[in-house]
C-alpha cells in the first residue's frame, strides 16, 4: 500500500477493493452494492405497482408476483437498507470517535463479503428456476410446501449474509467500546455513533434467532427434519416466533441508525447542540431494549389468546414514549436554532412529520383488538412504508448527500438534490398515504390482483402514479452522482461549513490512517468547541508517532466465496437424493469443495501470522494533507 496517490489501472483498483480492510473503502463497497440492491428492489416494487395499477391486471403472472413481492421485501430489508446503513456506519463512526480504524479490520471485510455473496446468491434465484415466493416472512407452512428451490435460495442466502451482518455488528460494538479517542467518553459520542452502538447490540441478539429459524427450515427442506411438519409432530408457530423475535428488533436496527443520521444533520444545520442529548441517548437505548419485548404484535391474529395479545399490545404501545421523546427533542433542537435548508436538512425536516405519521399508525396497529382488522391488509403496508421510507430511506438519502463529500471528496449538486428530494417526497406520500384507506376498505396485502367492483380501483391507481415519482427521483439522484464524479470538484475538511463532530476535522476523504495524531476530545461536538475558540482543527492528544496498520487480505473474499459455492451444493443435493443418486451427482462434491475452500482459508488465516505494518513518523510528516487524493 503506497501512501503516494497515483493513477492506477482498473485492475489494480479492483484488486485493492477486493482485498481492502480499510473501513472507508469497505464503506464504499457497502454503498455501491447496497445501492445496487436498492435499485433492484425498487424495480421489483415498480413491477408490483404496475401490476396493481388497474383491477384484474395481467402484467405479471400470479407466481411471478409472489416472487417479486418476496424478493422486494427481502432485498430491501436485508440487501439494501441494512448495507446502506452499514456504509455510513463504516464511513463515519470510526471518524466520529477519533479512531484510526475499526476493531477488527479483517472481520469488517469478511462481513462485507459474506453479505455480498449472500445477496448475490439470493438474487441468482431469478435465473435458476425461480425466486422465493412465500413473502419476506416466509411462514413455515407455505414455505415448506413451496416447490422448487426458491425458498432454499432464501434460506441459504440469508444465512450467509446474516453471518456477515452479525460479524459487522460485533465489530462495531467493539470498535465503539474500545477504540474511542482520548476524552471521547460515552456521553460525548455523537448520536449516530450511539445509535450504531445500540443497533449493533440489537444485531447481536436478534440475528441468532433468525439463524436458528433458518437452520430449522434448512433442515426441514434439505435434510428431512420435521420441525414444521405437522403430521410428524411439528409446529409452524415456532417459525413465526423465531422470525419475529428477530423481525421486530430488525426494524429498529433499521430505524435507529437513521435516527442517528438525522440527529447529527439536524444539529449541524441548526447550528445548535442537540437538545436533550442525555434523553436522546437514553431513549435510543430504551427503544432498543423494548424492541425485544414486543415481537408478538405481528402475531395478534395467530391465536395466541387474549392474555398474550393484551400484554404484547401494551408493551408495544410503550415504545411510542421514547420515540416521542426523540421527536420532540429534534423539534426543540431546531427551535431557537439557525436552520439552513441544505438537501440533507430538507430530508431531515421532511422526515419528522412523515415518520410521526408512520409511527402513530404503528400504535394503532398495536391496539390488538383493532389489529384483527388491520392485520395483513394494506393498512400495514402503508404503516411500514411510512416508517421505513419516511424514516430509513429518507435517512439514507439524507446521509448520502450529507456524507458524500466525506466519502468521496466531492459535493453532490444541491439543485439536483432538491429536485430529487421533492419528487421523492411527493411520490412517497402519494404512493402510501392512500394505502391506509385501501387497507381499511378491505384490501388484503400480498394480493396479485384485485377484481373490479370492490371500490379499490382509484386509490390503487394513485398509488402507482406516486411510485413513478419516486422512480424518477431515484434516476435524478443517479444522474447527480454521475455528473458530480465526472466534474470531480474537490472539497476541504468541512464542506458544509457547519460540521460539529470529529469527521469534519480531517480531509475529505480522510487519509487511510484517518488521524495523523489522535484528537483530544473536550466535550460533545468537539469540532464545534474548537471552532468556538477560533481554531479550525482539533488539538492533538498525542505526539506524532508511528501508526500501526493492518495488511490487506484476499482471504475474506475467498472465505465467503467458499460458502457461496457450498450453498449450491447444499441446495442441489436435494435433487440428487430425490433422483436416487442419478442426477446432480456433482452436488455433494461441490458442497464439500465449497466448505473446504472456506475452512482452508480460515486455516490459512490462523496459521499465517499477520501483524500488519507501521507507517513511520517520517512518512507522516512528508504526507501533509496528501490523503485527500488517495
Amino acid at each position, binding site marked *: 500500500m503506497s501512501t503516494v496517490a497515483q493513477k492506477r489501472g482498473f485492475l489494480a483498483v479492483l484488486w485493492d477493493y477486493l482485498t481492502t480492510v480499510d473501513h472507508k473503502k469497505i464503506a464504499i463497497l457497502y454503498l455501491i452494492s447496497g445501492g445496487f440492491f436498492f435499485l433492484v428492489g425498487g424495480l421489483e416494487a415498480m413491477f408490483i405497482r404496475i401490476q396493481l395499477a388497474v383491477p384484474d391486471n395481467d402484467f405479471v403472472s400470479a407466481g411471478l408476483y409472489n416472487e417479486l413481492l418476496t424478493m422486494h421485501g427481502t432485498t430491501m430489508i436485508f440487501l439494501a437498507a441494512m448495507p446502506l446503513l452499514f456504509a455510513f456506519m463504516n464511513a463515519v463512526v470510526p471518524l466520529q470517535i477519533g479512531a484510526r480504524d475499526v476493531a477488527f479490520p479483517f472481520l469488517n471485510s469478511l462481513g462485507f463479503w459474506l453479505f455480498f455473496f449472500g445477496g448475490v446468491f439470493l438474487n441468482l434465484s431469478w435465473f435458476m428456476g425461480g425466486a422465493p415466493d412465500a413473502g419476506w416472512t416466509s411462514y413455515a407452512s407455505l414455505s415448506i410446501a413451496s416447490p422448487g428451490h426458491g425458498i432454499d435460495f432464501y434460506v441459504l442466502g440469508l444465512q450467509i449474509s446474516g453471518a456477515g451482518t452479525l460479524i459487522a455488528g460485533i465489530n462495531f460494538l467493539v470498535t465503539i467500546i474500545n477504540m474511542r479517542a482520548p476524552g471521547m467518553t460515552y456521553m460525548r459520542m455523537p448520536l449516530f455513533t450511539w445509535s450504531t452502538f445500540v443497533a449493533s447490540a440489537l444485531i447481536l*441478539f436478534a440475528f441468532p434467532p433468525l439463524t436458528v429459524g433458518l437452520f430449522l427450515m434448512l433442515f426441514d427442506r434439505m435434510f428431512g427434519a420435521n420441525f414444521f411438519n405437522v403430521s410428524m409432530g411439528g409446529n409452524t408457530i415456532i417459525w413465526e416466533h423465531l422470525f419475529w423475535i428477530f423481525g421486530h428488533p430488525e426494524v429498529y436496527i433499521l430505524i435507529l441508525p437513521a435516527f442517528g443520521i438525522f440527529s447529527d444533520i439536524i444539529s449541524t444545520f441548526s447550528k445548535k447542540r442537540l437538545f436533550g442529548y442525555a434523553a436522546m441517548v437514553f431513549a435510543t437505548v430504551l427503544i432498543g431494549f423494548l424492541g425485544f419485548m414486543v415481537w408478538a404484535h405481528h402475531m395478534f391474529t395467530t391465536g395466541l389468546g387474549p392474555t398474550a395479545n393484551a400484554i404484547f399490545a401494551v408493551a408495544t404501545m410503550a415504545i411510542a414514549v421514547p420515540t416521542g421523546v426523540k421527536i420532540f427533542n429534534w423539534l426543540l433542537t431546531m427551535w431557537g436554532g439557525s436552520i439552513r435548508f441544505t438537501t440533507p436538512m430538507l430530508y431531515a425536516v421532511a422526515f419528522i412529520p412523515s415518520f410521526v405519521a408512520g409511527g402513530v399508525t404503528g400504535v394503532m396497529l398495536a391496539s390488538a383488538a383493532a389489529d384483527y382488522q388491520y392485520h395483513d391488509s394494506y393498512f400495514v403496508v402503508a404503516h411500514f412504508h411510512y416508517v421505513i421510507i419516511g424514516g430509513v430511506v429518507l435517512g439514507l438519502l439524507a446521509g448520502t448527500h450529507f456524507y458524500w463529500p466525506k466519502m468521496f471528496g466531492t459535493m453532490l449538486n444541491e439543485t439536483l438534490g432538491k429536485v430529487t428530494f421533492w419528487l421523492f417526497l411527493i411520490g412517497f406520500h402519494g404512493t402510501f398515504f392512500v394505502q391506509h384507506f385501501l387497507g381499511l376498505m378491505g384490501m388484503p396485502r400480498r394480493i396479485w390482483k384485485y377484481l373490479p367492483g370492490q371500490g379499490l380501483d382509484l386509490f390503487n391507481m394513485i398509488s402507482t402514479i406516486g411510485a413513478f415519482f419516486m422512480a424518477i427521483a431515484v434516476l435524478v439522484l443517479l444522474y447527480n452522482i454521475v455528473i458530480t464524479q465526472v466534474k470531480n470538484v474537490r472539497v476541504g475538511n468541512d464542506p458544509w461549513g457547519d460540521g460539529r463532530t470529529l469527521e469534519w476535522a480531517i480531509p475529505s476523504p480522510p487519509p487511510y490512517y484517518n488521524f495523523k495524531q489522535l484528537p483530544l476530545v473536550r466535550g460533545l461536538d468537539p469540532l464545534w468547541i474548537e471552532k468556538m475558540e477560533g481554531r479550525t482543527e482539533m488539538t492533538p492528544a498525542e505526539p506524532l508517532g508511528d501508526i500501526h496498520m493492518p495488511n490487506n487480505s484476499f482471504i475474506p473474499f475467498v472465505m465467503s466465496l467458499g460458502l457461496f459455492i457450498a450453498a449450491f451444493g447444499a441446495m442441489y443435493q436435494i435433487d440428487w437424493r430425490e433422483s436416487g443418486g442419478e442426477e446432480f451427482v456433482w452436488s455433494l462434491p461441490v458442497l464439500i469443495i465449497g466448505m473446504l475452500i472456506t475452512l482452508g482459508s480460515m486455516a490459512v488465516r490462523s496459521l499465517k501470522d499477520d501483524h500488519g505494518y507501521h507507517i513511520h513518523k517520517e512518512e507522516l510528516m512528508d504526507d501533509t494533507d496528501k490523503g485527500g487524493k488517495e
Partner: protein
Amino acid sequence: MATHESTSANPKVNYEYRRRKARDEMRMQVTSFATMIFMTFIAFIVVIADFDKYYAFPVLLLLAGAQVVLQLYYFMHMSHKGHGTAALFLYSGALIAFITVLTFLTIVWW
C-alpha cells in the same frame, strides 16, 4: 498499536505477589470445581430418587443456575474487574434467552 499496559512499574516486586495470588485463585477454582461436581451428583440423585416433578424441576434448575454462575465467575473470570461490559452483554443475552424460552413454553401450543 500494540501498546503495553504495564501492570506494575517494578515487575520483580510484583512477581511473588502475583504468583501467590494466582495460586490462591487456582485453589478457588478447584473448590468451585468440586462444588460443581457435587451439585451434579445431587441433580442426578434427585432424578434417580424419582421425586415429584414440582419438587424436582425447581431444584434442578437452581442447581444448574448455580453451576453456571460458578463457571462464569470463576472459570471464566467474570468476577475479575474489566468484565463489566462483557457481563452487561451476557446478561442482556440471558434476559432475551429467558423471554424466548418462556414464550415457547406458554404460547407455542399444541
